[in-house]
């Protein structure tokens, strides 16, 4: 699903990622672990080009996202992202947070199709071979209504439908993060990237967020997760990437990785966190 080929990323003179190559297949739950500052977040953020790679390729659905010419916004619709700090929109209610992107994308697609059809129509006056118009099967109102229904389905799923009309500032961290996750789900992404989704939470709220992530995993969602939750990595992960100093130092199934680490630095890291 995502082919990462020789990915490098520097900030100024600092080389953070030094050539990473890996493939993330559909349905995989890739867990990324590694010491602080090793480049885990940077790697994750390169996958949807929140950071532009310095060199290398990110092939997603046959297109290289690292190429500045591709329309990154279209691809990002299919790559969800969940942040450590939740990043719910403070000026929007919970419902608006979830509906914003689906509505905006749906409505602007209709607008674009209408514009194209307008020019096709004008062109058709002069053409012998009439060109087909793009079928517009939804009105703006329908797009909004569908997004609303879907948002309520998602909110019911996490038991927060009663919070639909409140602002994020009134929610607990666990609630915020679960809403951030369903906000990403509302776009029907093909893969979701998680950057330490539980690190900013009070301990008693970590469970509810991990439970939701496990549900998604069970439903077959492709996930890439940076986390310090080794229990989650072992239980949910299908593959562990150990990143150290900007390279994948070790890569294995959770069982092999935790029971049988190969590299001395991996052993050292695991002895500290387990």
């Amino acid at each position: 699903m995502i082919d990462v080929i020789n990915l490098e990323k520097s900030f100024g003179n600092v080389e953070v990622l030094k050539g990473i190559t890996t493939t993330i297949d559909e349905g995989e739950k890739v867990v990324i672990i590694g010491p602080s500052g090793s480049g885990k977040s940077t790697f994750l953020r390169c996958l949807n080009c929140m950071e532009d790679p310095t060199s290398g390729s990110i092939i997603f659905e046959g297109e290289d996202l690292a190429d500045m010419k591709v329309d990154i916004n279209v691809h990002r619709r299919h790559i969800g992202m969940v942040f450590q700090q939740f990043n719910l929109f403070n000026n929007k209610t919970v419902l608006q947070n979830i509906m914003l992107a689906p509505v905006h994308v749906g409505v602007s697609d209709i607008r674009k199709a209408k514009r194209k059809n307008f020019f096709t129509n004008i062109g058709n006056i002069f053409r012998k071979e009439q060109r087909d118009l793009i079928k517009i099967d939804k009105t703006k109102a329908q797009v909004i209504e569908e997004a609303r229904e879907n948002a309520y389905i998602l909110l019911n799923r996490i038991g927060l439908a009663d919070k639909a009309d409140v602002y994020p500032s009134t929610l607990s961290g666990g609630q915020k993060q679960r809403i951030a996750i369903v906000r990403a789900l509302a776009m029907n992404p093909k893969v979701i990237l998680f950057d330490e989704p539980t690190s900013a939470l009070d301990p008693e709220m970590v469970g509810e967020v991990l439970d939701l992530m496990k549900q998604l995993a069970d439903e077959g969602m492709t996930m890439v997760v940076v986390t310090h939750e080794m229990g989650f990595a072992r239980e949910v992960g299908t593959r562990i990437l150990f990143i150290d100093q900007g390279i994948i130092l070790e890569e294995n199934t959770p069982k092999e990785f935790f029971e049988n680490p190969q590299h001395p630095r991996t052993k050292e890291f695991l002895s500290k966190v387990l």
Partner: protein
Amino acid sequence: MEILLNRWLSFWEKIQNPGVYGEVLKGLRNTAYIAVVGLIIGIVIGTLIAVVRVVPKYKRIARILDKICTVYVAFFRGTPMVVQLLLGYYVMLPLLNITADPLTVCVIIFGLNSGAYVSEIMRGGIMSVDIGQTEAGRALGLSYATTMKKIVVPQAVKNIIPTLGNEFITLVKETSIVSFVGALDLYKAFRNIGNSTYEYMVPYLMMAIVYIILVLIITLGIKLIERRLRRSDRRN
């Protein structure tokens, strides 16, 4: 004291004349009009400039626009507003061969001037919004412009309302220069009263009081808006 009382009595008699208080009211209306519409134009221009200035400078067009905005802001912040008013009315109008009444010119110049100041305020406001808000918008596939419009700028505006209030007060006070190009404002109205009686003490005193009352009312309005916004932060 007696002098003041006598002068006050003659002023009081004068101001009851409909022609006279009519002119004061018209001056008041013009002052309000220039300040309010000027601020609105200023907010629109200021927001556009602020966005141009914070946008990542990958593309050449972004760099060019940024240069233009820098020059614009430098000009309007670096010259007195009277000079801008005079340039607008006595230089630009004839050069462009446009006819416009002084009031319109004043509103436009006040708007352009205020745009330069508001752009700096707005830039600070935009930068005070957590970068995570932008990242969340972009990660959902929203364009930079959409993210700005729907997420960042609304939050920035909320953060800078007190500062915008100060800009509004500045504009109200600055309107006292518009008679340089022949527009009627509060100052001009009171000066006309003085001119007709050769007595300036009471008219100018009254003028000062009217300005102070105006500013106090606006200050109160800003306080109320601020309190409303703070309450909406905690809502539910």
